[in-house]
């Protein structure tokens, strides 16, 4: 009965809009199967977590009221009074962390399998831009509950922007909506979080997905070199999609487990004149940058240490985005190729600095 209705509906749409390209894509898209196939699922999980964020974010928007006098109170109302409000808020907070985590895993898996190479340069570039916007989502969303920790973390975070030469100070004032972090900052971060970022993010996400559908899945070198008869593929639909779904369900279950057993503390309301609470730390995914800036000396040669650090991360990020266009000679004698070595060093740097940040 349902099946019959479904096929009837598809026929109805097909008759009017011609679904052949979609049908072709679904039927003919295939995914290579090899020992590194597991990394193909990372992008899917990231996308799933983004959808969770979108859904829970919309629900939070029903009750959240931005403003110095209402933001904290409304979040408290959500987690205490609204039915399942606690679940939605905690899932939203946890999913943001998992989303960033899986985005990083996805990015490094693409990097190490060299999937960014021609013709997928733009997929990499759009992916990197999406990651930057994901971090911006995290940073802007962190302030919205208007609690002590968020308030001071935003203060420190926006202070870092201020060290940039010439544009630093105006950019800081633009972000804060004034000299200090105030209700104006909250309004602006809210606008950025729920309107500006989603709009730009969606454009790049759609491009990123279109590029992938257009070019199909990347085949690593060792797979490409196999004789045709030894190459194994599975159809994207329904085989790969089912496996994707399986992983999504597991991740979702973990997500609600975290939301229930490790809920995010709301803490005390932000108070501009209160002294900063002990142990202000940024979100874990900013920790490696924060810790690096902290460890830098006040001055390196004639430049301020912090400024040099910020510039370094800016340039490094930009270079990282342009990785597909960097030509490095293949060195047959090297066990690990130069770019792979750089990637390993970057991962080690991020992991070590994050751990150091939490230990110190």
């Amino acid at each position, binding site marked *: 009965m349902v099946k019959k209705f479904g096929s009837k509906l598809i026929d109805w749409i097909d008759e009017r809009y011609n679904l052949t390209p979609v049908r072709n894509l679904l039927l003919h898209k295939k995914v290579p199967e090899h020992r590194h196939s597991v990394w193909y699922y990372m992008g899917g999980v990231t996308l799933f977590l983004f959808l969770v964020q979108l859904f829970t974010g919309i629900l939070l928007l029903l009750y959240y009221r931005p403003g110095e006098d209402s933001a904290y109170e409304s979040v408290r109302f959500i987690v*205490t009074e609204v039915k399942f409000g606690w679940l939605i808020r905690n899932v939203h907070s946890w999913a943001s962390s998992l989303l960033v985590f899986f985005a990083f895993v996805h990015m490094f898996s693409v990097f190490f399998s060299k999937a960014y190479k021609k013709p997928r340069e733009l997929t990499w570039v759009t992916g990197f831009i999406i990651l930057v916007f994901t971090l911006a989502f995290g940073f802007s969303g962190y302030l919205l509950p208007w609690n002590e920790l968020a308030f001071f973390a935003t203060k420190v975070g926006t202070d870092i922007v201020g060290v940039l030469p010439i544009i630093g100070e105006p950019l800081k004032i633009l972000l804060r909506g004034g000299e200090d972090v105030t209700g104006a900052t909250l309004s602006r971060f809210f606008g950025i979080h729920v309107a500006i970022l989603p709009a730009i993010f969606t454009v790049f996400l759609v491009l990123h997905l279109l590029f992938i559908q257009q070019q199909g899945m990347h085949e690593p070198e060792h797979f490409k070199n196999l004789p045709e008869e030894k190459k194994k593929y599975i159809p994207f639909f*329904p085989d790969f999609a*089912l*496996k994707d779904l*399986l992983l999504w369900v597991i991740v*979702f*279950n973990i997500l609600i487990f975290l939301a229930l057993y490790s*809920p995010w503390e709301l803490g005390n309301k932000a108070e501009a004149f209160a002294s900063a609470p002990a142990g202000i730390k940024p979100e874990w995914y900013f920790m490696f940058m924060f810790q690096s800036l902290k460890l830098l000396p006040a001055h390196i040669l004639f430049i301020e240490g912090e400024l040099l650090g910020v510039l370094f991360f800016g340039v490094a990020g930009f270079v990282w985005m342009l990785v597909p266009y960097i030509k490095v000679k293949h060195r047959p004698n090297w066990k690990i190729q130069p770019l792979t070595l750089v990637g390993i060093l970057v991962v080690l740097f991020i992991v070590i600095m994050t751990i150091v940040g939490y230990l110190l």
Partner: protein
Amino acid sequence: MGKRFHYFLLYTLSVSFLFGFILLEKENIKKDQNQKVDQCFVCHKEIDNLPKDFSENDVHKHANLSCSSCHGGDPNSDDQEISMSPSKGFIGIPKRKDIPKFCGKCHSNINIMRVYQPRIPTDQVEQYYTSVHGKKLLAGDTNVAECSSCHTAHSILPAKDPRSSVYALNVPNTCNKCHGNSSLMKNYKIPVNQLEEYSKSVHGIALLKNKDISAPACNDCHGNHGATPPGLKSISHVCGTCHVTNMEYFNATRMAKAFEEQDFHGCEQCHGNHGVQKPNDEMINVGKESKCIDCHADGDAGYIVSKKIYSSLIHLKNKYNEANAKYLEVRQKGMNDIEIGFQLQDAKQALILSRTLIHTFDTTKVGAKAKEGIDISNKASLLAQKEIDEYYTRRNGFAIATLAFLVFIIALYFKIKDKEKNKTTSNS
């Protein structure tokens, strides 16, 4: 050009030197005017004959007063014959009986005192003579306390200075110097265990142990300069200066009158004096710790009243404790405790007010307030229970959801396996 420059340099240097010298001299003259040499101090220090209790921090020394300001004489002369000559007004060491007037020379003169402290009272001596200490001194008893007994003679500090002998934290020990001396107190037939009792009291623990200077020391009940042993009226009045409502309630009862007739001491009769303890609900009961049964016997009206009041109080206390235990569980479980916290505050307030209302000895009033507290406690308990139930509902919900996910995951797994199997068979 070179010569000219040398002349210019020489001229500038000489002028600067001259100006510098003039300024220095001016500064020295100014210093001399401010600090005239006090010959009393210089000589007595030289021959090592300063008073035993002399302190550089003494308030009078800080105000640039000379020894002669109190003891008379001429502080400008280094000749003993002149400086300590009676013709120069030298008094020397005053007799004990004269000390209040000796200090009062300045301390009772508002024109002198306002120069140093515009708002300082000047009735200390007058008040002193109304006290037992003052009266006895006038009568010729030189064993009693005069100004220097409490304030010291030469290391006097303002009462707000923690180093002062009359700073709140130090007052009990200062009084105890005499009042703890049994040979001294023997003549007056006064016990000497006041400090010991006080140290164990609710006031003493607050002041001496917890360093809470808002807690009463000896002088807060007995007065400072006008020290007088409290009589029936005054003691209840003294307690009432802090415990206002309790006193008001008590004074309006028939009991207050009866107490007066029997020459009972208001608050002290039940709560004690120096050793006053934190009140306990059992005090209003009819058991071992009861204060009521000191006067009331089984079956009389007072006995019944105390039983009823106790029952109301205990009922409220139990309900409050029950709600509080649940509240703590809610907090420990990380559930919403905001509203319960507010309600418990109200319940606690009702409990405190009920305990205060004991002093009306009116069962209806205590009962009504206790009922108010019981109702609030019950509401808080219900709310807390709801949160505790919600805590378990969430966990059960998660377990059911996980089970459903698990079934779905297993089904998906088999579906995938099934597909893979079909594919291999169709390939082969």
